C-alpha cells in the first residue's frame, strides 16, 4: 500500500482525542435533536418553533462536520476543507433558494391561499 497522504495520526497518538471529539459530537447531537422535539411539543408560537428547529438543524450539521467528519480550517487540509464547505454551501443555496423561489411563486398563483392578493397580472387573464 502507498503511504497515506492525508496527514493521519497514528492510532495511539490520536485515539484519546478522537474518542473525546466523537463523544462531544454525540452528546451535542442528542441535545440538539431533543431540543427540536421540545420546540415542537412546547407552546411556543409556530414561527419561533420553526426558527428554533432550523437553528438546531444547522448547529447539528456543523457538529457532524466538525466532530464526525473531522472538517477543520486549520492544519494541512484546511484549503480542501474550505473549498468543500464553500462548494456545498453554494449548491445548497441553489437548491434551497431555488425551491423557495419556485414554490413561493407557485403558491402566490394558487387561488385561495394566503398571499393571493399579490397575484401577478398575467395570472388574472382568464
Amino acid at each position, binding site marked *: 500500500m502507498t503511504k497515506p497522504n492525508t496527514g493521519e495520526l497514528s492510532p495511539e497518538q490520536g485515539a484519546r482525542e478522537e474518542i473525546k471529539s466523537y463523544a462531544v459530537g454525540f452528546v451535542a447531537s442528542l441535545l440538539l435533536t431533543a431540543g427540536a422535539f421540545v420546540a415542537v411539543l412546547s407552546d411556543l408560537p409556530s414561527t419561533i418553533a420553526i426558527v428554533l428547529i432550523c437553528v438546531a438543524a444547522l448547529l447539528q450539521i456543523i457538529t457532524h462536520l466538525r466532530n464526525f467528519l473531522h472538517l477543520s480550517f486549520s492544519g494541512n487540509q484546511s484549503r480542501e476543507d474550505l473549498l468543500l464547505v464553500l462548494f456545498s454551501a453554494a*449548491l445548497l443555496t441553489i437548491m434551497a433558494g*431555488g425551491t423557495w423561489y*419556485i414554490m413561493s411563486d407557485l403558491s402566490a398563483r394558487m387561488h385561495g391561499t394566503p398571499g393571493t392578493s399579490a397575484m401577478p397580472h398575467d395570472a388574472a387573464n382568464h
Partner: protein
Amino acid sequence: MSQDTSPIFGNLNWNVTPYTDLLRDVNSSTIIGAGAASVLVLGAIATLALLTYMRWWGPLYRNWLTSPDAKKIGIMYIVLGLVMLARGVIEGFVIRAQQATALGTLTQEHKVGLVAPDHFAQLFSTHGTIMIFFVAMPLLIGLINFVLPQQLGARDMAFPVLNQVSLGLTAAGAGLVMISLLIGQFGTGGWTMYPPYTGIDFSPGEGVDYWLWAILISGMGSTLTGMNFAVTIFKERAPGMHFMRMPLFCWTSLCVAIMLIYAMPALTVSSGMLMLDRYAGFHFFTNAAGGNMMNYANIFWMFGHPEVYILVLPAFGVFSEISSTYSGKRLYGYTSLVIASMSIAVISFTVWLHHFFTMGQSAGVNIAFGIATMIIGIPTGVKIYDWMATMWRGRVRITAPIVYLTGFFLLFVIGGLSGIILANPSIDYQVHNTTFLVAHFHNVIIPGVLYGMLAGIHYWFPKAFGFRLDETWGRRTAFLFVGGFVFTFLPLYVLGLMGMPRRSPTFQNPDFMPWMYIAAFGAVLMLCALTSLFWTFFTSYRNRMALAVPGGDPWNGSTLEWSTPAPVPEWTFPRIPYVAARDDWGERKRAGDPWKAPQQYCDIEMPANTAHGLLIAGAAFALGFAAIWHIWWLVILSFLAIPGVLALRGMRVIEPKVISAAEVRETDQRFRHLATTLAPITRAEEESERNRGVPDISEFAG
C-alpha cells in the same frame, strides 16, 4: 387492498401472480404478463441449474460475490446492467408494438390492443425505471469502478468493502423490480411517480411501493458509490498524478462523484417523503392538511436533472479516451474539456425547473431556468468540437467504439438541439407530454449514455478478460444500435409535433400509423442490436485464443491502465507507478522501453474477501420486499439486521490479504518477459489475429 393483513405473510397470497390473471381471463395482455413472469422463473431456474451443473457455486462465491476488488465489482455492475438492459429493450419493443396496433382501440369495447391500458402503464413505468436506475447507472458505475483506479495508478477504491455494499444495494433494488414481474404489480405512475396519483388514495396496493423501495435502496448505494469515487480521486492518486495530469475519464468520474453526492440525497428525500405519505399518513404531497404535490416534482427534478449529466458525463469521458486512442493523436483541448466537464457538473444543478415548465409558475421563473438550460449547451458543444478536433487528420481506425462515437456525433447533436428547442418555455408548452419529448430524451440518452458505455465496454474488455471482442460483430452491433435508434425515435419527433401524447395506450388518428410502423421497425432493429451485442460476447468468448492480448496494450494506448497485462492481476500494479506526465504510459513509450521492470518488489496488502456486502444486500432486499407486502415481522428483523451486520464487522479484527513480494515478482517478470518476446504490431494490423497486445511503440505519436 385486502383488509386482512396476515401476521405472517402480510398481503401476500396466491392471487398476486400474473398466472391468476391469466386463469381469470385469457387475452394478449395476460399472456404477455404471464409470459414475462415465466421467462423470469425459467431464467432463474436455468441459471441455478447451470451453476450447479458446472459446479460454479464455489468459484462464484469466492472469486466474485465476496470479492472487494473494484475491478470485479465493476464487472458485476456491468453484468447487472446488461441483464437489465435486455429486459428494458424488450419492454421498449412491447411498447412500440402496442402503439403500432393501438389505432382506434379506445372505442372498441373488448379490444384493448396488445396489452391492457393498466399493463401498458406498468410497462412504461418499469421501462423508464429500469433503463435509468438499473441499466445506465450500473453500466457507468461499473465502468468507473473498473477503469478509475487503474487510470489513477491506485490498486483499489478508497473503501473496497463499501464498494461491495453499494453494489449489493443496487442489486437489491434491481431484484425488487425484477420480482415485481412475478409477485404483484409494478406502479403505473411513470418512472417519476408523481403524486397525488401515486399517493395512497389513488394508487393503493404494492405497485408504487415497489418503485419507492427499489429507488430508495439503490439510491443509497449510488450515494455511497459517489463518496467512494470522490475519496478515491482525492486520496488514492499515484504519486505525481496531479489533477491536471489525470486522464479525462477520471475528470468526468470526479464530476459524476460530486453530482452523485449532492443529487442522490434529493431523490432519497422525495421518495422518503412519499413513503411517509403512503405508509404513515403524512401529508407532504396530498391536497389535504397543507400538503403540496408540486413540491414533489420540485425535489425529484432537483435530483433528476443532475442525474441526466451523471449518466452522460462518464460517456463523455469514454469518448475522450477513444477519440484520442483510435486516431493515434493526443487529446485536443485537454484543459477546455476539463473546464467544460466541471461547468456541466455545476450548471446542471441550476436547470431542474425545465422539467416542469407547465406546472403553473409565472413566466419570469420559467425564463430564468430556460436561460440556464440553454447555457448548459455551451460546454457540451465545446466538448463535441474538441473530440472532432482530436480526430481531425488523425489516422482513425474504424473500430466498433469509433462507430459508436460517430453515431454519437451525428445523433447527439440532434438530441442536444431539440433540447435547446425545448428549453424555450413557450415551445415546451406546445410539445410537452408528447412523443416529441420522448424522442428528445431518448435522443440524448441512447447515443450519449448507451453508445458511450458500449464503446467503453468494447475498449476496456481486453483489460478485464484478456481477449478482444470480435470487431466485425462489434461494428455490426454498433450499426444496428445506430440504425435502430434512427428508425425508432426520429419518427417520434414527427408524431409529437402531430400531437401524439406520450404514454398513451391508444389513439384515434390514422395519420399516426405510417410513423408508428417505422418506429416499430426500429424497435425490431433494436432487438436485433441487443441480440447482436450478446452474440458478440459469445462469439468472442469462443474465439478467445485467437483474440487473446496477453501483452495488455492492444490499442497502443497512452494511459496507465494499458501498462499492465491483460487480464489485469488483482493487484493491478506490481509497484505503484510514479507519474511524471499527463498520459504517462504514452510518455514512457516515447522515451523507449516502457516495459522496464521496477527495481524492487514488496509485499502487497489487498483487502480480504468478505460476505459483508452480500449480507447487507440480503437484508436490504428483505426489508424492501417485506415493507412492500406489509410483512411487519420481517421488516423489523431485516431493519435490525443491517446495523447488526455493520456492528459485527466493526467489532472483528480483519486482517488484509498479503501477496508476497516473491509472487508479485514472479508474475510480473513473466509478463515483462512475454512483452519482449511477443511480436509488436502496427496500428494497421490491430484487428488481425497478430495483435497480441504489444504495440509497435515506434508508431506512437499520441
